[in-house]
Structures are given as C-alpha cells and as structure tokens.
C-alpha cells in the first residue's frame, strides 16, 4: 500500500502528531499550563475514538508498518497509558512551573512513537521507532532540570540505552548482511533455507540485549531502579508500563516473524532469563526503603513473569503476554497514582510515609492495597488473571521448573508487597489526615481501581476484546 492510501488508516496517529505540534504552539500563548495538559488529554481521547480495528492485516507505507490486530491492541495500550499518565501529571505539583507545556506535547509525541513501534514491520523502522521512544524517554526522565537526581537518571538512561541500541543495531546489520533484506517476513524466509544457525543465534542474543533493556530484563535491568527513582513520578509510572509493553510487542513480533524456526535456540535462553529476571527483581525488592525503587524492582520481577509467556511461545503464551501486559498496566499505573498522591501530601518517597496511611487517607490505602494485591497476583483481581495465563502457558508447554521458580518467586513477592500493606494498616499514623486528592487524581484512581476489579471478576469481557 502506498503512502497516500495508507494515510486513511493512520488517522489516530496523524491526530496525535498534529496535536503534539498544536500543544507546543499553545504553550506560547497560554499562561495556565494546565490547559495544555487538558488539551493533550482531549487529543488522546479523540485518537482513541477514531482508532478502528483493521478487518485484515494492512501493510501500510509499502510494508513499513503492519497494522494488524496485534498492533491495534498496542495502539489502545499506548493511548491508555499516555492518557492516564497525562491525567495524573495534572495532579503532580513539581510540574506546576514553567516547562509544563512541553511536557504534555512530549507525551503526545510519545504516544505516536509507541504506536509506530508496535506496528513496525521492517528492521529499519523498528530501530527508528524504538530510538524515537528512547529519546523522548531520556528527555522526560530529565525533565526536572533543577533536580540532580533527575539529571543523573537521564544521563544514566541515555548511556545505557545507547549501548544497548547499538548492540541491537549490530544484530540487525548481521541479518541484513546475511539475507539482503530489512523486511521481517523476507528475512524469516531467507533464514529458513540457508545454514545460518550461528548467525541467527548471534542476532537473537543481540536483539535480547537491545529489547531486554527496554523491558528491564536481567541482566540489562541495572538502569531501571536509578532511573525510576530519579524521574518525575508520572514519568516513572509511564516508563514502568508503556515502553516495557512495547518492548514485549517488538520481541514477540521479531521472534514470530524472523526467528520462529530457531525456537530450540531461544527457548532455553528465555527460560533462564525469565527465572533470573524474576528472582533478581524479587529478592532485591525485599530490602528497598524508597517506594519508587521498590516498585522499580517489582516491575523488573513482573517482566520476568511476562517472559514466561514468551518462553512458552504457544498460542496461549502469546495471549498470556497481552493479557498480562494489560492487567499489569492498569495495576502498576494505579499503584503509582497513589504514590504520586502520597508524595504530594508528605513530600516524601520513603516507605515510612506510608505508615498508618489507612488512618490518614482510608481511600488511598484501600486502593493501594488492591493494587498491591493485584501485583502479587491474588484473585479475584486483574493481576491474578495475568498470572494465571502465564502459568497456564508454561504448564501447557511443560516448563515445570520454570513454574516452580515462578511459584516460589510469587511467595517472595507477596512478602514484600505485604510490607507496604502492613505499614499502611498495622502501623500507627505519624501525621494528620490528608486532604482529598485532586479531581484529576480521583478520576484516575477510580478508573484504574474499577478496571483492576472488573478485569479480575469479569475477565471474559476483557479477554474477548484484547484477543479479538
């Protein structure tokens, strides 16, 4: 399909792009920066409404993008994550200063970039769109210019990210050199016929490096805690879900289109990496004293569980990845929304700020409890459905060791999630009651809370929509 024809299937993305530029311009004229944020929210909603599911896979822009049901799901995921992040940013006090207009337009660009990542069907396009997301992430992480932690986080992220991207690019060049094409299906077919096993193995490992960085997979997770701690809280919330989800999207697509014939090579690697990721994440999380670092390690561990679905790579395994990502997105954003609210009231990200939260703000405490229980994978909440799916995929693929490790890890995880719950409910309060959260935060909290409950209690409704 040529460029002009493709445009009509690209309307939501065009709206995002246009909206981002308008938001930049609006920033010049509006003194009330919150309005820019509200405008950005409007753009997201508009894009959401106009995003139509393709009836069949569409090769847009000469096959650069493949708009299929898979990409369409990530369209919703990206828009949802960005929309909620903008919503909670409206209640984030350190932003109420000068640069806020740019902040929101950067997020609109981000939404655009994320969708292109999910749809990219060409090595060059994959690299470009991932770099687009990365560059925007570096900017957003370092957005609080006056905060040394934020600056340090941005530099660290940039250095780590560049190295990993470079390695992945090298892997892509190997594939191009061997097959003479950048298009995923063509490469996949070329690899099938020729004796390229060592080369493909190297390329797979290089892909794991580049994308492993995005999804904070061990041993490429080292950047995550520092970056998550230093970044502005809404950005942290966003980084723990959206780039991770998109990393999984690309990984799924690459494994599916290029390396499907080499499953015996990458399955053991993924099994080991999955066990490593969840174990490192969980064990390190136990001793954290900063809530953002704590959730950072927890999100590393969650990536380990999602990798289980990828390792199984059956039909069920791929479904598991999508379901888990969706459940995790809702839950983690919810947890960060409460973190943002508490930090706004106490000016602290320390775990001690949560002592007696059930007295100081019963609603926030109850909701954070539900989000943490969902992260721990307890029924009947969203996280359980995700965990059920990955466990089912692994059992179906007879990865018994993997599931045993995952079960033990889940117990460790429950232990540290309950540390927070214990602080909130079993420890006496250290200060007066909080004021009610702002309107934006309230809306975000209730939306996420109800979705986490609904996904847990009526999963079939969501599953049919997610898996089409």
């Amino acid at each position, binding site marked *: 399909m040529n460029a002009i024809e493709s445009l009509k299937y690209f309307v939501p993305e065009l709206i995002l792009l246009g909206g981002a530029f308008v938001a930049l311009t609006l920033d010049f004229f509006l003194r009330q920066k919150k309005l820019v944020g509200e405008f950005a929210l409007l753009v997201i909603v508009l894009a959401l409404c106009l995003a139509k599911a393709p009836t069949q896979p569409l090769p847009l822009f000469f096959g650069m993008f493949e708009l299929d049901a898979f990409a369409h799901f990530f369209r919703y995921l990206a828009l949802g994550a960005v929309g909620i992040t903008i919503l909670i940013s409206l209640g984030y006090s350190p932003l109420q200063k000068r640069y806020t207009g740019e902040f929101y337009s950067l997020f609109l660009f981000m939404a655009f970039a994320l969708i292109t990542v999910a749809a990219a069907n060409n090595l060059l396009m994959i690299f470009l769109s991932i770099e687009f997301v990365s560059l925007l992430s570096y900017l957003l992480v370092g957005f609080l210019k006056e905060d040394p932690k934020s600056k340090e986080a941005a530099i660290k992220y940039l250095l780590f990210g560049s190295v990993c991207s470079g390695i992945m690019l090298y892997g892509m060049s190997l594939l191009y050199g061997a097959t003479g094409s950048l298009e995923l299906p063509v490469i996949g077919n070329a690899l099938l016929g020729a004796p390229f096993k060592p080369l493909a193995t190297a390329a797979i490992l290089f892909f794991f490096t580049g994308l492993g960085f995005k999804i904070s997979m061990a041993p490429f997770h080292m950047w995550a805690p520092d970056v998550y701690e230093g970044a502005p809280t809404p950005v942290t919330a966003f980084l723990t879900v959206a780039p991770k989800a998109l990393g999984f999207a690309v990984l799924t697509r690459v494994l599916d289109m290029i390396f499907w014939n080499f499953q015996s090579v990458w399955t053991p690697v993924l099994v080991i990496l999955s066990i490593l990721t969840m174990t490192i994440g969980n064990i390190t999380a136990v001793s954290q004293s900063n809530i953002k670092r704590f959730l950072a390690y927890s999100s590393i561990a969650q990536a380990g569980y999602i990798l289980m679905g990828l390792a199984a790579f059956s039909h069920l395994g791929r479904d598991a990845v999508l379901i888990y990502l969706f459940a995790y997105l809702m839950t983690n954003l919810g947890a960060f929304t409460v973190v943002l609210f508490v930090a706004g009231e106490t000016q602290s990200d320390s775990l001690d700020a949560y002592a007696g939260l059930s007295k100081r703000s019963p609603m926030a405490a109850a909701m954070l409890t539900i989000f943490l229980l969902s992260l721990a994978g307890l029924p009947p909440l969203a996280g359980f459905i995700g965990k059920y799916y990955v466990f089912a995929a692994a*059992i179906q693929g007879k990865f018994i060791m993997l599931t045993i490790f995952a079960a033990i890890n889940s117990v460790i995880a429950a232990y540290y999630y309950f540390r927070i719950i214990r602080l909130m409910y079993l420890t006496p309060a250290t200060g007066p009651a909080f004021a009610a959260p702002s309107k934006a935060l309230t809306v975000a909290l209730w939306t996420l809370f109800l979705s986490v409950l609904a996904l847990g209690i009526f999963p079939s409704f969501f599953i049919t929509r997610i898996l089409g």
Partner: protein
Amino acid sequence: MTAHILSWIIFTPLMGAGIVLFVPKSATDWIKWIALTTTGIVTALTCYALTIFQPAQAGFQMVERASWIPQFGVQYLLGTDGISFPMVFLTAIISMIACLASFPHVRVKEGREKEYYFLYLLLETGMLGTFLALDLFLFYVLWEVVLVPMYFLIGIWGGPRREYAAIKFFLYTLAGSLFMLLGILGVYFAAAPHTFDMTQLVGMPRGLLFQQVVFMAFFLGFAIKVPIFPFHTWLPDAHVEAPTPISVILAGVLLKMGTYGFFRFSYPLFPQAAHWFQPAMAVLAVVGIVYGGFVALAQTDFKKMVAYSSVSHMGFVLLGLAALNANGFRGAMLQMFTHGTITGGLFLLVGVLYDRAHSRDLNDFGGLGVKMPAYAGFLTFFALASLGLPGLSGFVSEFLALLGSYQYSKVVTGLSTIGIILAAAYLLYMIQRVLLGKLNLKWAGLTDIKIQEVLTLLPLMVLILGIGIYPRVILDYMIPTLDGLLKAIKV
C-alpha cells in the same frame, strides 16, 4: 430463591459487607448488628437448604451452573453433597457464634469496627464458597479470598506478635496454594476436553506418575492448611495471636478446608495416588496425633495448649482418611465437624478467661472453680468432649477413625491411641491448674461467665451432646456420599 439457594448462602455475607461499607464509621452499634444479622440470615438459609437436601442421595445436589470465563471453560459451578453440606452448616454456625463473640472482645476497639466486620463478612463468603465450589478455578479463587481478610484480622486485632503471626500464616498458605494452582493447571491440561468441571473430571483416567506428581502438588496446598506435621508451625503462632473469635474461625473452619480438599479433590481425582500415598498419610497422621499431644502437654499458655491439641485432633481426621475404608472416612468426616464445635468452644472459653484476667498462663491460675462456678462447668464440659468422653461427639468420631484404621494397620492404630491418653492428660492437667487447687488471690475479683458468652457456647453444646448421644443425626447425611466416594476410588 430455592433454585439459587447456594448462591444466596455464599453472597449474603458479601452483601452484608457491602452494606457495612456504607454505614458511617462511628455508627458502631449499627455495624455490629448488621454483621450479626447477616450471619444469622446465612444460618437461616443454611437451615432452609437442609430441608431441601436429600440425605440418601449420593451425587451433587442443588447444582448451579453458569459460564464464567468461556475462554478457559471456567464455570460458576456450585453444588453440595454429604461431604460439603456438613461443612457449610458448620461454617454458618461458627461464623454466627464468632460474630457474637466479637461484640465484647476487648481489642475490637480503636474505632475500627467497620473494617473488622467488613473483613469478617468477606471471610465468611470465601469460606462458604470454598466448600461449595465444584469448578477447580472457582475453588482456587475462593480459597485465596479467605487469605487476605484473615491476614488483616490477625494482623490488626491480634496479640503482641500479631504482625509476625499474620504474615507467617499468609505466606505459608500462599506457598501451598500456588503449588496447588500448578496442580490444578496440570489437571486441566491433562483432561480431554480441557475442563475445570469436577463433575466431569472425576471419572477420567490418568497415568500413575501424573497422579502422583499432581497429588503431591495438591497435597502441599492442603497439608499446609490442615496443618500436617511438618507444615504446622504457622498454626500455634496464628492461633495464639489471633483475637478469640478469629481463633474460633481458624480452628472451626479454616483447618477443615484442608481435609475437605482431600475428600473433594485429591481422593476422587487421583485414586491410585491416594492408595500409593496411604502409608505416608498414616505415618503423618500418627506423628501429628502423638507430637501434637506431647507438645500440648508441655504448654503453659492456655491458648497454645488448645492450638496444639488441634494438631493432635486433626491427626484423627488424617487417620480416617488414611484408612481408606468406610469407618475411617465416616470417622474423619465426623471428626472434622466435631473438632470444629469442640475446639471452637474451647477457644471461646480461653477468650472468656483472658478478657477478665488478661493472662493465659496456666500456672498462674488455680481454684477458679470457686470464683466462677458456671465457667468451671462449661470448661469441664468442653474439656471432656475434647478428650473423647463417651456420650459426647468427640468420642464417636475418634472411635470411628480408630475403628477404620484398625482394619488398615494395627500398629498405626495402637500408636494413635497414645494421642487419646495424651488428650486426657493435658486436658485434665489444664482443669487441675485452672479450676482446682487453692485460689490465687490475684484473681479474687474475677466475675463469672456472662449470659452473652453463654449464648455463644450453647449451640455448640447442643451439637456436641446431640451427636454424642445419637450420631446418626449427622452421619445419615454423610454416609451415602462417603460410600459413593469409596466405591469410586477403589483400585
């Protein structure tokens, strides 16, 4: 309503919890009475279901079926039979009694009644659902629903080491149930067609190795809950630290979820593995009976003594299960019921004393029979029931369990009887230290048991005495199902 009676039983507490959520925090009297009324309605519904229940029929009754997650063939499938119905009845009665016992309980202060009764009713929904679910997925969900409220109920309103006890209970049970989840998934994928439906799964053939592996996965989940030695270490902590009404629920209902799991899932699904595991089960039963008895004998803390006596008494349930014959199963099933009533009563009585004296040190008391004659009477009654006095229900169930195990192994039976002697020893020794001897002047001001506390004990006493004198009043409900089960798992 008759068509959906089981759903009504499960969800009435949840509705009550919802109502509690909307009552202002300060209206504590309202909250209390809403909770008690809710548990009362559940009991009434259960009694109504009792009139519909056909005791002579072996299969599942009052079945309710609806599709829940069609992608996995998960159903909302409820049903009851002679195994689950007594447990539901026990749960309803114990929940109502423990709710009444919660009213005066000292630690239910701090203005947190709303949270307490909300969690309490949520817990009741989970417990009832666990006993009624016939879909493995639904069962797992409801089994887990029990955990979280229990964590809070122990952790917020418990004794000095409550936080440790609560998280220990939680993590132990969670670890067990996660392995059970793996087992459930194994059963699901091994079945053709894939299903969680117990009514279809029961008849399907399974390989021996598969049965053994999955049986062990289920065993971990159930053994921790019962608890079977060596997984019992959470129990003394949880029982001792929990507030009185929650100890009653723990002993009366939660422990039975484990042994119920053996009856409902492990045995019918993996009959060959059950026979393979029979010797191990018998050994574990004996170890539990004797070990629990000796440790109970050594306790100076009243509540801890009752807690360890639970380990010993639950051993008789396992003994009956290990026997794999008619008498054994009847004994085990009856022991589940009677242990709930007797130990529940003992925990209530510990609470009565603790509320007044703020001490549970057995060596500290003495001569209370003079100061609290009515209390002394009740305590003696429950202690005698617990040690297996003929004429009371504990005797019947333990006798049947021993009768069954005698047919299986004389050695095991012989060793198990040590447990009965030990029970007599620690219970009479307790009575001697608390009620007899010289009155410790420290306790001269203690008042006797109050009418409200008596009300919590009376229903239990009626059940204990009734079953003790005429066991068929409850056995008739169990026997057809148990015989059916026995026939189904014959190899």
